[in-house]
């Protein structure tokens, strides 16, 4: 009987302690939060090559109207100019991938001194304004100026191809804005080996950053 009494006393004391533990006064404000993050996205919408009309005859068309003739320019793009020849021999083709992220450019039947110009149009498909931060051409990163790159396809120490990326670093593109134009020039050099003339390949990666993050830390 005495044990039962002690047990009851202990129970009462325990419940009392518990009561003290929950007895503080409080008032609460409840917050329901929703967060959505934006997106940075740009894509190719269109592309132009200065020369994309193939000749009618394999090997080229002679005495063609001026608008069909191939282009050429000075080595190193000296004079910042290009002009027409009198034949239509080479031409360029391009294809934009379905996701708008890659453009494949092919120069067909190209030959030394052949010039072509590539213009791409990009739009902001994200929700945050963006700026063009840098381009990577032939593994080299450029963040300003007018990058000029020479390629030595066969590693013989002589440059076979040259490319000039026209300056638009820091150019802004807002969501929904009209596409931005980016241009580059291409020129086949005299040492270019014949065996590779049909398969000139080069890669250019363009990197943009949200406008308040420009320029990206180096």
């Amino acid at each position: 009987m005495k044990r039962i009494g002690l047990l009851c006393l202990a129970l009462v004391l325990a419940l009392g302690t518990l009561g003290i533990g929950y007895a503080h006064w409080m008032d609460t404000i409840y917050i329901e939060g929703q967060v959505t993050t934006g997106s940075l996205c740009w894509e190719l919408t269109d592309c132009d090559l200065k020369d994309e009309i193939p000749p009618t005859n394999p090997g080229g068309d002679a005495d063609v109207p001026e608008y069909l003739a191939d282009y050429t320019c000075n080595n190193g793009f000296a004079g910042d100019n290009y002009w027409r020849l009198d034949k239509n021999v080479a031409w360029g083709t391009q294809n934009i991938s379905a996701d708008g992220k890659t453009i494949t450019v092919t120069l067909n039947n190209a030959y030394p001194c052949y010039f072509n110009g590539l213009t791409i149009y990009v739009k902001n498909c994200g929700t945050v304004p963006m700026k063009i931060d840098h381009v990577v051409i032939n593994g080299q990163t450029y963040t300003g100026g007018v990058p000029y790159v020479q390629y030595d396809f066969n590693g013989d120490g002589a440059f076979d191809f040259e490319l000039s990326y026209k300056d638009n670093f820091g150019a802004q593109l807002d969501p929904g804005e009209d596409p931005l134009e980016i241009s580059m020039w291409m020129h086949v050099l005299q040492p270019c080996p014949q065996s590779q003339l049909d398969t000139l390949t080069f890669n250019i990666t363009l990197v943009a950053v949200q406008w308040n993050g420009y320029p990206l830390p180096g």
Partner: protein
Amino acid sequence: MKKIGLLSLALVLALGTLGVAYAHWTDTITIEGTVNTGSVDINVEYYSGTDIYKDVSNDGIVVVKWVKDATGQIIWSNGTPPANGILVAWACAEPGEENDTVVVTYNNTFPCQNLTADFIVHYTGTVPAHVYAEIDTDDPWLEGLWNSGDAGVYGALVDMEGGYQFIEPIEQLPIQMHYCDYAKVWLWLHLPQDDAYMNLTGSFNATITAVQWNYTPE
């Protein structure tokens, strides 16, 4: 008959004894007690937010902060949206449907820009209180931001005499509040420059709790 007489005598004596017990002089002091209990009471009175604009005329970032009362009237703002501006991101706090609830929304957040959605609480309790914050989310990316310090809750007492004056968040909760104090509670978010945070949606629940100051939660 003799027995009846003895019984009557005993009864008279007993009653006489009782009479002595009540016959002494008495005087009484009566205490009437009243206990008015205090209160712990915290309420949201003002709501604020941040609008992030891109000023198209100079490509700059314009951050407009504002404070509204419960009816939606702006009582303070650090400026006006740019005339040629694009609203890129915003965060705001507004009254919830239930009493003592706040709905906080962060929209189109992007890296490298703090976004705060705040509210101002009025402490009307008569017992000093400590004000704590607790945040809970089921979204790992949001939890990661809280844990890494890229999101958090700050608070500070504000002097509302003469109107709201902008102050920066200065201390993490808990803070101590006394009767009639105002405090601003900041819920801020900062996205790291990481593509993994693009196009995300998350939600969280938070509580702002005032607890009597002499109680220390475990």
